[in-house]
């Protein structure tokens, strides 16, 4: 168990020292602790396969009601996700050494990435829900700090704030869900909670899981809390690979997988999750088809793929969703790092500025092709295997087996998943063609980046291609022939539509196949604008109203009491006119009244 603590603690130590150490030591402090954590995670994954799950508690914190146990655990799920996190983190840290060579604030950047890695590993390995929550929120903060890394441009700062606030809103619900679970089970430990699930009332379970879904929606960028992810692309590309593709956004899926027995026991939540997944899947895929910025395409693609995982969980396969999480982590991180290489070579994020790059980028082109193939779900890339599992499970659930989803919702998910496969293939093909084929900009001399950038890309390409085969030994993770034919067919259909559109006119954007939907898709269906009008402007107006009310009403009452006191004093002042005869008259009147009173009232 000390090894697990090392896995979590080494990157944290790297971050803490890195904040204070200079720029020269920063690359070592970035890569060495994370790399060490990677090696330990790999060994733990191997060792735990034999030994089984374990956990250890450092101390119990008495809070006055349910205590918090500071404890870490290790089981199959946490070992696998831990390996994913450390692999991608090490790749990103190595890549960043080259990508951020010119950056004067590299030390703090690397320290924040290390802190983030530590937080995500804490989420993965925490055996207590509140300890998990600590890591959950710290990730959100590191995401804010990294998205806003180039803070000279206030737009990046705003994107970072948006990411933090939207996820924080989800986190409030998440915290309340933890409260419900913890108080019902009498303990915040995950093991105790899961053991108490059969004894909890359905109402409690539904309430708890619905609240947890709020957090999941925030962190994993699901509808309706997905709007922060496309804007988060304002941050440096390596962190988009780490945080917004492979790790932080996967945390929501991870938590549902972790607490799966509770979710399965709450069918209404699964229904809601399925509906949200269906909406997100297709909507994000259409938005990706219309986006011009390469990173935004990948961002929307992430939203869509995460919705796939959520749909898989809703349909009843925990292992399938986690499998897709792992393969998606690999190929999406690969895609982002390759996108970084492309952007580094071209100097712009927009696909209109790209084209014909396949000759200048001998490593990036095949790697990105593999990534896109995995995204589209073409065999033998890993994405084919994992996506197929999910499609198969949704089909079975629609047929009545599997999770207790309402039937029409299951059919909705199945149908939307198939359509999304086609749209996914469409936008992948579009991005691939517009980046690497066609006419290159005449002034451009594109070349690969330094070795520190190329090596991680090459390394990540391997699991992106081959990880699917690792699922073959497990019965639930093998491809299912009818559904795989259907999904590959849909994928090829989408690719062909885009390819023909592109062939007809290589200069224009194949997104025109969207037809009338195109303007809406470009604006991501106006969700951002709706939120701005529904939330941002009213809150700002309410804030101004509060300040005015504070000054006029609340403080006005205070000042008014002062004025009243002074006014009363003013009234009394009139008695002091300075006229001695008036004073004497008053004395006389008083004496008369007292005398009359004494005599009459005796």
């Amino acid at each position, binding site marked *: 168990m000390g090894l697990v603590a090392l896995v979590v603690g080494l990157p944290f130590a790297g971050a803490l020292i890195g904040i204070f150490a200079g720029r020269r030591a920063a690359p070592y402090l970035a890569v060495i602790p994370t790399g060490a954590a990677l090696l330990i995670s790999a060994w733990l994954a191997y060792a735990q396969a034999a030994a089984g799950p374990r956990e250890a508690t450092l101390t119990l914190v008495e809070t006055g009601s349910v205590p918090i146990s500071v404890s870490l655990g290790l089981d199959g799920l946490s070992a696998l996700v831990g390996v994913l996190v450390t692999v991608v983190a090490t790749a990103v840290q190595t890549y960043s050494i080259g990508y951020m060579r010119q950056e004067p604030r590299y030390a703090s950047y690397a320290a924040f990435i290390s802190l983030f890695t530590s937080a995500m590993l804490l989420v993965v390995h925490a055996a207590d829900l509140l300890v998990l929550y600590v890591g959950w929120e710290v990730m959100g903060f590191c995401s804010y700090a990294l998205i806003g890394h180039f803070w000279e441009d206030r737009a990046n700062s705003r994107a970072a704030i948006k990411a933090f606030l939207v996820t924080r809103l989800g986190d409030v619900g998440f915290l309340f869900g933890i409260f419900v679970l913890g108080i019902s089970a009498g303990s915040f430990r995950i093991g105790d909670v899961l053991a108490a699930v059969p004894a909890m009332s359905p109402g409690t379970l539904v309430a708890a899981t619905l609240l947890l879904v709020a957090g999941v929606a925030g962190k994993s960028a699901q509808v309706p809390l997905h709007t922060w992810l496309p804007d988060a692309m304002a941050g440096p590309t390596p962190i988009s690979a780490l945080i917004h593709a492979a790790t932080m956004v996967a945390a929501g899926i991870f938590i549902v997988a972790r607490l799966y027995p509770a979710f399965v026991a709450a069918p209404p939540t699964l229904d809601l999750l399925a509906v949200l997944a269906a909406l997100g899947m297709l909507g994000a895929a259409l938005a990706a088809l219309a986006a011009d910025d390469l990173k935004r395409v990948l961002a929307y693609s992430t939203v869509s793929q995460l919705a796939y995982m959520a749909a898989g969980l809703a349909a009843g396969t925990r292992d399938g969703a986690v499998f897709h999480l792992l393969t998606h982590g690999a190929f999406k991180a690969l895609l982002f790092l390759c996108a970084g290489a492309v952007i580094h070579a071209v100097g712009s994020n927009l696909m209109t500025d790209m084209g014909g790059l396949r000759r200048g980028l001998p490593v990036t082109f095949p790697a990105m092709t593999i990534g896109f193939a995995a995204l589209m779900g073409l065999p033998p890339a890993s994405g084919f295997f994992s996506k197929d599992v999910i499609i198969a499970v949704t089909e079975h659930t629609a047929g009545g087996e599997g999770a207790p989803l309402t039937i029409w919702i299951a059919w909705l998910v199945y149908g939307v998943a198939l359509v999304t496969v086609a749209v996914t293939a469409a936008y992948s093909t579009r991005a691939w063609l517009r980046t690497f084929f066609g006419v290159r900009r005449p002034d451009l001399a594109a070349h690969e980046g330094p070795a520190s950038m190329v090596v991680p890309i090459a390394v990540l390409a391997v699991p992106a291609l081959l990880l699917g085969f690792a699922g073959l030994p497990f019965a639930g993770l093998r491809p299912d022939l009818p559904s795989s034919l259907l999904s590959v067919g849909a994928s090829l259909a989408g690719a062909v539509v885009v390819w023909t559109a592109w062939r007809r006119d290589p200069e224009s954007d194949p997104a025109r196949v969207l037809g009338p939907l195109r303007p809406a898709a470009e604006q991501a269906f106006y969700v951002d604008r709706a939120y701005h009008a529904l939330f941002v402007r009213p809150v700002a107006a309410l804030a*101004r109203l509060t*300040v*005015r009310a*504070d*000054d006029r009403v609340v*403080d006005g009452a205070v*000042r008014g009491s*002062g*004025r009243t006191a*002074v006014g009363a*004093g*003013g009234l009394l*002042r009139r008695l*002091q*006119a*300075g*006229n*001695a*005869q008036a004073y*004497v*008259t008053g004395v*006389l009147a008083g004496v008369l009244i007292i005398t009359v009173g004494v005599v009459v009232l005796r």
Partner: protein
Amino acid sequence: MHVVYPAVVAALLFSVGVYGVLARRNAILVLMSVELMLNAVNLNLVAFDVWLRDRLHGGQVLTLFVIVIAAAEVGVGLAIVLAVFRNRRTVDVDRLRDLGEPEPVGASPGEPEPVGGGPDGRAGDAA
């Protein structure tokens, strides 16, 4: 003679004196009215002293006290009136109001002035 006669006369004199104190404007007339009141009291004291056949003659003794005090008081009072006349050229009591509270000018002295640092705009001006 029944005591009621001097008592009534004293009361009438006292009332005249009270009227003079309260309603006359001239300060000297006010002092004269005060004298009237004191002498009415003297009359009352002597009359009751006789009527009650006081062996120690407390009433008459007190009358002597009052006469002396009245004399001293009138002397001081007239001196003050003379000094006021020299300074102000008037002995009109209604016009001698310096002991009174002045009317407030704008915000009264005790009230805190409106605070700097209110909403938005004013904070910047205060800083």
